């Protein structure tokens, strides 16, 4: 009888080690950008980071918690507005105002969830859209927030361009760490198992003792805060926010497109999708509506024929996860 001498649980794979190293290199590259890249490229990087973060948060909602939201722009807008009010009207340091502005999406997410939690599937989606529209119309009628004309972040003029860029890349690195890193950490934790179970079948998960309602609530609030974080950074870089832009349903469309094309229910999917969207937008954006027709049809085709998106197709070629969440038992005899 052979005895098992050594037993251990492994999660890292060669592909994940490569991905982690690359991830670290990308982060270092991002943070040092003000010293080697042009201002134009830095703006692109900020935009791309915001897309990745917003899409990843939508992926967490729709891909794992089963909460299909088409109203995430509500959280982008409110945290953007909160940032502008704190920095412009209350004189808070704008870079410090970014984390403070996250209070707004958190506060909005709680009543929104309790109002909408009784709805499932499509009803929930419509509810989130109505909430986002109601918040947009509400803000458009508040004179203190300059109604429909929006706000400008004039206080940013006190910083030099270099100072701003340094602050932006650090904020973007933090954004990626909290949204991607946070999702990865969550999925690897005890709650990650529950979430994966929920993704596959919420009813079966509940029968196994997963508190589906509570977990959904936490995910909804966390996703709101993560989305708001990206919104604050995005509009701080834009220096201007209006109700039409901040609460633009385009944010929801973009998240849906990125996650569906990239691959829903996988961290890798949101990243791949964001990269595809970002570069497609740069390359074909000039074609205007023709480009959007292709984008729409692509989403339709993926919903009909390839539900796993690009990441799903890549997985068929070979199992090389970048962010492995599975555990493997390694037995050495």
């Amino acid at each position: 009888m052979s005895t098992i001498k050594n037993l251990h649980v492994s999660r890292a794979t060669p592909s994940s080690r490569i991905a982690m190293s690359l991830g670290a290199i990308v982060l270092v590259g991002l943070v040092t950008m003000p010293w080697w890249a042009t201002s134009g490229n830095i703006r692109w990087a900020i935009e791309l980071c915001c897309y990745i973060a917003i899409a990843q948060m939508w992926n967490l909602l729709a891909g794992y918690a089963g909460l299909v939201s088409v109203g995430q722009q509500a959280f982008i807008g409110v945290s953007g507005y909160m940032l502008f009010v704190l920095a412009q009207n209350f004189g808070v340091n704008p870079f410090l105002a970014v984390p403070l502005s996250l209070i707004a999406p958190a506060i909005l997410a709680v009543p929104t969830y309790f109002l909408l939690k009784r709805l499932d599937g499509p009803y929930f989606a419509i509810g989130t859209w109505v909430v986002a529209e109601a918040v947009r119309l509400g803000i458009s009628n508040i004179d203190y927030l300059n109604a429909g004309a929006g706000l400008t972040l004039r206080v940013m003029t006190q910083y030099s361009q270099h100072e701003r860029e340094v602050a932006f890349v650090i904020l973007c690195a933090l954004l990626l760490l909290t949204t991607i890193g946070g999702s990865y950490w969550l999925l690897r934790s005890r709650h990650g198992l529950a979430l994966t179970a929920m993704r596959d079948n919420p009813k079966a998960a509940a029968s196994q003792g997963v508190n589906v309602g509570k977990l959904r609530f936490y995910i909804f609030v966390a996703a709101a805060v993560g989305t708001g974080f990206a919104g604050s950074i995005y509009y701080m870089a834009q220096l201007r926010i209006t109700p039409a832009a901040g609460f633009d349903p385009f944010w929801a469309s973009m998240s849906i497109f990125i996650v569906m094309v990239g691959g829903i229910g996988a961290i890798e999917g949101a990243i791949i999708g964001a990269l595809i969207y970002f570069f497609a937008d740069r390359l074909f954006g000039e074609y205007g509506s023709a480009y959007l027709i292709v984008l729409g049809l692509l989403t339709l085709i993926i919903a009909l024929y390839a539900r796993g998106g690009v990441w799903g197709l890549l997985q068929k070629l070979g199992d090389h996860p970048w962010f492995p969440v599975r555990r493997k038992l390694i037995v050495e005899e």
Partner: protein
Amino acid sequence: MQWFDAIIQGVLLGGMYAQYALGMALMFGVMRIVNIAHGDVMILLSLIAVSLAGVLPVGNVGLIVVIVPIAVAVGWVLQKFILNRVVGADPLPSLIATFGLSIALQNLMLEVWSADTRSLPNSGVASASFQIGPFYVGLLPVIVLICAFVLTGGLDAVLRWTRFGRGLRAAAADTEAAAMTGVDPKRIIGGMGSIWGAFLGAMVLGVAQAVGLRIDPGLGILFGHLVFLLVLATRPEGIMARKK
């Protein structure tokens, strides 16, 4: 008096919404899917009608006769090649597929018809109005309201009394496996997917928007949304849902 007028205008506006909502309510009721492209298909058919008006000398009423078969064909293609593939317990595929279709259709229409406002040749109906006591009422909105009422009543009667209607209701009940779990299958049609519920909802929305508009021009649409959220908070099963 001003408020009474707002309610009348709201009900007339609601007539238009009720026509929009009717198809949605039927889809909801039978297939349990939300067709995000519903509004886009509606606008597509309207634009086709406007374009046809330029080449077919059949008058505005004749156009309806032409456009309805086209609508049936569009609906059949949509159902056969897209919706039937995504119907299922998971709401996500249908939502995403129709979302993609919506984006594609919107931009396709923008390419073909540009963003200009278009209208049918005016036969005088659009601007005609008559007076009841101190109120002026537009003729066209009244016709729209009557059509909405007749269509809603007709659809309800079809669902209730015909063999086809019974089949539809059974299909609605089956997808939910409601009968198995002891829920009265009738409740599904009578609840959120309710035909008259959609009609009433449209009226409530129209009145809320018209009243909001009287308070402040910026508040009209917001009032509609707030009523939606209020209904959600107090009667999440819908205004018309039957009591057990």
